[in-house]
């Protein structure tokens, strides 16, 4: 409330000030018979001095902002490429802040110093090819460095993920995210949006899902009339159907018949290996759990409109586009707990945000990201079930202890690869 009062006060004072200024000015203009096109010496000097005052205030507030709010409120980059990004970002900031200060200072100092003074004539100086060459070549050279360094990073970031990288799919919809892990085979099950039903929200291709979808179209299900029923109603000669209803029924029928043809195509190209890929996938809504040091190859897709998967702490971002799969890879280097220590904030969580306008609740479309150490990650994996309902770590009782110890060792090696 306090700030509101201040604003109100500022506004009221501002309006009063302007009104007073106008009145004073009108009165003085009447008395002095001054032409508004001639700028009096006093006004020139005043504005010239204000240029200098403005420059100093501008710089002071810039420095204040830098000291108070730092370069980034996000903390250190939490991914391998992010460290590179931050290094390059800082280098670029050094360059542009230097340019900012240099050119703005020249501007405001010239604007202050070369104000019109009685008896001083401006210096006729239309061009100087040498000077102009200098300030073409120097920026070009600096930019060459920026371009080379930038493209080197860009090529690294966008290069193909290594074969050991774990494949994880991030599915986006209005207004949330779901993660799908590829399971022990590291292959994500296929998907097709036409298979999306209440029972198969992510359109995953399995024989059962194809059958289900076909059944929904042909026979129908809860809340949905199948082709059979619609045909029956259309052909029922004992009942009169309003023209409007008939039209919508026919439209619905046409759409479903088309869908059946499309689903039959999926069925025809289906082979049994697809079931195997899909069945050991693990679907985790609401949170994304990552293993420290693991290379991840994320694939993104969208159910409805364009979203953007923005992981600010990992310096990672990729749009999710309906009808098109996009990819981004990164390797987290600090667990959530380590990051909490670094940020000195015991509640800190990594976050995945939507960063492409996607509708009214765009601003709420988020998912927590948890980076775990080897033990925690293994323990979390143990609690997760795959798509067909078996445990993620599906080991027989006899071999469980050794297999888990092997996994733990592997995870420890992965986590250790990013230490130091």
């Amino acid at each position, binding site marked *: 409330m306090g*700030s509101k009062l201040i604003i109100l006060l500022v506004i009221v004072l501002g309006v009063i000030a302007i009104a007073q200024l106008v009145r004073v000015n009108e009165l003085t203009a009447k008395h002095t018979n001054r032409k508004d096109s001639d700028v009096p010496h006093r006004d020139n000097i005043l504005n010239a001095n204000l240029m200098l005052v403005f420059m100093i205030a501008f710089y002071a507030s810039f420095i204040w902002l830098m000291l108070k709010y730092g370069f980034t409120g996000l903390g250190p980059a939490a991914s391998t490429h992010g460290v590179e990004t931050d290094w390059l970002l800082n280098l670029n900031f050094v360059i542009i802040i230097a340019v900012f200060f240099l050119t703005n200072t020249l501007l405001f100092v010239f604007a202050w110093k070369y104000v019109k003074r009685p008896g001083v004539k*401006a210096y006729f100086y239309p061009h100087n090819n040498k000077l102009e060459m200098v300030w073409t070549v120097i920026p070009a050279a600096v930019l060459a460095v920026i371009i080379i360094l930038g493209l080197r990073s860009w090529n690294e970031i966008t290069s193909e993920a290594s074969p050991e990288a774990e494949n994880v799919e991030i599915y986006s919809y209005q207004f949330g995210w779901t993660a799908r892990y590829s399971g022990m085979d590291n292959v994500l099950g296929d998907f097709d949006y036409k298979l999306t039903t209440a029972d198969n929200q992510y359109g995953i291709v399995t024989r059962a899902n194809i059958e289900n979808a076909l059944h929904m179209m042909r026979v129908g299900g809860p809340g949905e009339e199948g082709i059979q029923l619609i045909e029956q109603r259309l052909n029922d000669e004992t009942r009169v159907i309003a023209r409007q209803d008939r039209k919508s029924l026919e439209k619905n029928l046409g759409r479903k018949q088309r869908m059946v043809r499309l689903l039959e195509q999926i069925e025809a190209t289906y082979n049994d290996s697809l079931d195997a890929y899909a069945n050991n996938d693990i679907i985790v809504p609401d949170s994304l759990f990552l293993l420290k040091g693991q290379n991840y190859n994320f694939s993104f897709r969208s159910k409805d409109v364009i979203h953007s998967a923005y992981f600010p702490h990992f310096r990672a971002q990729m749009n999710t586009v309906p009808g098109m799969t996009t990819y981004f890879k990164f390797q987290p280097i600090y667990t959530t707990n380590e990051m909490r220590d670094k940020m000195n904030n015991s509640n800190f969580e990594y976050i995945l945000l939507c960063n492409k306008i996607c509708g009214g609740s765009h601003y709420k479309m988020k998912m927590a990201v948890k980076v775990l150490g080897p033990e925690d990650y293994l323990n979390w994996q143990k609690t997760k079930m795959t798509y067909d309902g078996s445990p993620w770590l599906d080991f027989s009782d006899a071999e469980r202890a050794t297999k888990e110890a092997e996994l733990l060792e592997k995870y420890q090696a992965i986590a250790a690869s990013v230490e130091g």
Partner: protein
Amino acid sequence: MAAVAHDGHHDHDHHEESFVSKYIFSQDHKMIGKQFLLTATFMGLVAMMLSIFFRIQLAWPGESSDFLNLFLGDRWAPDGVLNQDMYLGLVTIHGTIMVFFLLTGGLSGTFSNLLIPLQIGARDMASGFLNMLSFWMFFLSSIIMFISLFVESGPAMSGWTIYPPLSALPQAVSGSGMGMNLWLTSMAIFIASSLIGSLNYIVTVINLRTKGMSMTRMPLTIWAFLVTAILGVLSFPVLLSAVLLLIMDRTMGTSFYLSEIIVGGEMLDNVGGSPILYQHLFWFLGHPEVYIVLLPALGLSSEIISTNSRKPIFGYRAMIGSILAIGFLSFIVWGHHMFVTGMSPFLGSVFVFTTLLIAIPSAVKVFNYLTTLWKGSIVYTPAMLFAVGLVSTFITGGVTGIILADSALDIAVHDTYFVVAHFHIVMGMSAVFGMFAGVYHWFPKMFGKLMNNRLGYVHFWITIVGAYGVFFPMHFVGLAGAPRRYYDYSVYEGFNVDSYNMMMDLNVIISVFAIIAAFGQIAFLYNFFYSIFRGQRAPQNPWNSNTLEWTTPVEHIHGNWPGELPTVHRWPYDYSKPGMDKDFIPQTTPLMEGEEEH
């Protein structure tokens, strides 16, 4: 070529004009320029108000405000709290109006119309009728865009770039219904208006220059308007096609931009389209558009800085070269808006390279401005203040472009407030400053009156402090990871309360400055309208300027010059030339014996 036919016997040709033909359906470029200015001023004020509405929400989220309720009513601000859908609507229409209606239609429309014939020595535009048509189409599109704010389901809500599928699917957001229909209709008409206008400008500059006005004697304003018009003619049709394809996707069941979508529980039939195609089409206009907005402002400020420094613009030919280079490059950089769409990394590299090249002609322009000021004899008219302000914002906003052009870095800051800060400073503030500078400088030419300088000073200092106060802190909000177009940042509260507190602190500061800057505009509006009616009568050449427009009589006449058209003997920047007794030599003054042309 009625204008040519009038030549020579113009003063006998004084026919009575009716109110309608003089003030409404006028074919006189000076009147049409003023019509553009007034319409754009209205639209600009609307867009500014919208920004105040959403700034209130951002600084004080969820707090009740009678002010919001007063303007937005119970429909969009129940209990004085802004509705989250309407928030997006406000952001969208704010951007659309500012970019297209104020800074494209308003800036080019006003000053190209006013200055092209006057500064090249022509009686009028090549086609007065098309010029009139261009304005009235602009007016119609403005009205349609304005009334879209009052539609029951709300105005367009998918951002000023209206990316499909969001903009194509009314199921996805309510503004994609009737609001989007109006947006698309308005823009289609706007584009037609802009094309007609631009063609007219190009033809006029090429064909109707007076005797002696060679291309290298044209003021930089005209060069800027010419290149701007060429950019518009080459790029706006692409946006029109993008808009038409979107209209087809929305109404005829085509799938240009739609593929494999399930929205609101409904599985759509569309397969095979690409929403990314729309982005390519949009930004093929969108990036040249940045320079359509910026170049006229740079042209105006070149003229104003030279005149008021009483010095020739430094490096005239380099300035022309820069304008041409910027114009050319602006067509091959659009992909830098799309680094995170999953585009081919190689293509991305090409766009990084071409984009960063633009920094070179931009740097040349800045250094040339600085050298023009150096050892000048600066006169601070309000126009000069705004022109100097423009150079500052062009630098401050320009340098951050280097980070955004670098694809590897763009990933980290794309679509955050860092971007919002960048383009508001480099494009918004610069172009608005250029426009204000233009209005103060050529007001005597438009209305035959002088504006009040002191009020102009107040206006400038409030505006520059206010606008920098708004946009400069946004860099820090962006670097803290705040995405743009968020209704509320409390999402960070549960994850990183430090980031959240910082965003909230700065958001309050930003909104306070926004309100101050908005109030500063009262000084301008008061000055503008007061001076039209009660300002001092302007002398013929109030700023002791060299260009041709100041050789026309103060009272407007149709055809601009009584009698013969002026003949040009020199470039427009002979200020403080050694050996001359006056510190300016109008372009119509013949070269003295032995005098070299600059």
